[in-house]
């Protein structure tokens, strides 16, 4: 039924203007003639959709060829079908892609392929050559590009002492991606390192900001660092607050609550936002928490919870973040609409951050209902349009389908 609606008015009408969006009808991004297969949106930083001036690019991994490979669809704003679909990966197995807009209908994607990370330029003529970013032993690559055309990649690399993050600047030469500088460590070498799932964004003035998961303390914490153009990364600082064991716990190896999968974005006002999944409340699973920076990523403020109280009793998963005109949009999936019903495994939820506060949550009408709608990702266009992708399946173990929908603020207050 929902697919028959050309426009769906969304939102919580009692919260005027704070969480209201109108969505176009969903577009299925993959062909329907395939047998059962599985789509995934689980890349570092969850940059699975990018908004250009007139088009949107979506990247994902699926196994319809028999092995996991990375694909991309491009569709014009308002289109009811992709204009182009490409298989981006060329090797045996590929995972966890990211994509950014490079202007004028051009895109840059990166992903893990056969034990390392690679990048590829795409334009209206299709994909260019594949560029390895690391010779071997790398994974969890993410991308960041700003309005000035700066392009960076960060990834996790295996070393004899553990897994460490590296970052580099990229440049487009013709239709090829090249490394504009030598990859550098984001945080210093340390014994037993485990740095993982980086997220990256650009602050005003060309400061590159990277956040990541780090297990140096005996449980997962989030750290961040940044560097000015031509400079070195600053000492890492902890992003999340965490629960430590109580003082009477005695001798223990248990060092605190968990966090995972941090995302970063920058809005048009130059503010930075981070969100992540946070297990500080032991009774209700992971929740979406965040922190903001108003000094270009040099520091982040106190942690604030993103979701509203209606989501407090259920776990949140697959958070993603977009920055754009005047604010941010966070999306994730949870089961608040199906509490107690094991057959209703999740819907896509959205919250908007404008004027320094997260809006009441919106159950996205085009990405909710019977079955599972989840693992969302989002991008914001320069016109304030929201571009949302998500995965649907009958239940959590069923084969999946991939959908896209665009939305606009139903009121000017939703996202200025």
């Amino acid at each position, binding site marked *: 039924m929902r697919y028959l609606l050309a426009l769906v008015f969304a939102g919580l009408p009692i919260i005027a203007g704070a969480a209201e969006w109108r969505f176009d009808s969903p577009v299925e991004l993959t062909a329907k003639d395939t047998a059962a297969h599985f789509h995934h949106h*689980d890349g570092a930083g969850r940059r699975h959709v990018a908004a250009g001036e007139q088009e949107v690019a979506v990247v994902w991994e699926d196994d319809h060829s028999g092995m996991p490979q990375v694909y991309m669809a491009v569709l014009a704003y308002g289109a009811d079908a992709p204009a182009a679909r490409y298989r981006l990966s060329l090797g045996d197995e590929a995972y966890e892609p990211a994509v950014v807009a490079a202007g004028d209908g051009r895109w840059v994607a990166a992903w893990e392929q056969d034990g390392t990370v690679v990048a590829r330029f795409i334009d209206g003529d299709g994909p260019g050559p594949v560029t390895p970013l690391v010779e071997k032993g790398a994974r969890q690559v993410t991308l960041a590009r700003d309005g000035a055309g700066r392009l960076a990649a960060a990834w996790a690399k295996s070393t004899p002492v*553990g897994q460490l993050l590296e970052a580099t600047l990229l440049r487009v030469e013709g239709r090829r991606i090249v490394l504009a500088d030598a990859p550098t460590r984001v945080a210093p070498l340390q014994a037993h390192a485990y740095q993982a799932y980086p997220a990256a964004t650009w602050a005003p003035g060309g400061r590159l900001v990277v956040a990541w998961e780090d297990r140096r303390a005996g449980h*997962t914490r989030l750290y961040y660092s940044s560097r000015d153009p031509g400079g070195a990364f600053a000492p890492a600082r902890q992003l999340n607050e965490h629960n430590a064991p109580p003082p009477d716990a005695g001798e223990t190896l*248990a060092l605190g609550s968990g966090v995972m999968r941090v995302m970063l974005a920058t809005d048009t006002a130059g503010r930075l936002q981070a969100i992540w999944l946070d297990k500080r409340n032991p009774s209700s699973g992971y929740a979406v928490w965040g922190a903001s920076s108003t000094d270009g990523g040099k520091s982040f403020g106190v942690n604030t919870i993103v979701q509203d109280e209606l989501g407090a009793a259920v776990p949140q998963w697959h958070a993603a973040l977009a920055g754009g005109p005047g604010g941010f949009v966070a999306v994730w999936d949870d089961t608040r609409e199906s509490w107690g019903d094991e057959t209703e495994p999740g819907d896509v939820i959205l919250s908007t951050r404008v004027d320094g506060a997260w809006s009441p949550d919106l159950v996205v009408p085009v990405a909710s209902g019977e079955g599972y709608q989840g693992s969302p990702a989002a991008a914001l266009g320069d016109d304030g349009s929201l571009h949302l992708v998500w995965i649907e399946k009958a239940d959590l*173990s069923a084969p999946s389908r991939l959908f896209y929908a665009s939305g606009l603020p139903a009121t000017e207050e939703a996202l200025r």
Partner: protein
Amino acid sequence: MFYINKRHLLALALYMAGSGMPGTVLADPPQGWDFLPLDQALQIASREQRPVFLYFGRQGCPSCEKTNRESFTDPRVKERLRENYVLAYADSESGKRLRLNSGERITEMALGVKLKVFGTPFFYFMQPNGQPIMRAPGYQSAEDFLLLDRYVSGGHYKEKTFSEFKAEG
């Protein structure tokens, strides 16, 4: 009886080597046990027609450590679980990949989403084909584990709920 054979040891060695990381940064399964990744455990379970005991943990998780320290050191628990199940372990925040019986390739974190693991530790009893038998969230004492084992290995789950079984003493 569940004997450790060369295949099991090889699988365990590949599991440790496959992480590419020192053991100190992984979540902490109890020492002295032979846990496998779930996909390898399911292969063995299918071949040997034995159920799977899956332990979801998290690095630094206080209740996981308490379970490891207080319950998994009990020789009765160790004997019953090793004898009756193929043992699997997953790190609930890990990006390590495994392949499910459906053919889907997912991370251990995504496995937790699929199995609705909202906290750790989280214990799952599965049929050899991966179908769920029952799940037990949170800290479990040694006596809890022994009761769960009697319920599952005795086949009582086919006829009554765990609450009913527990009430019968």
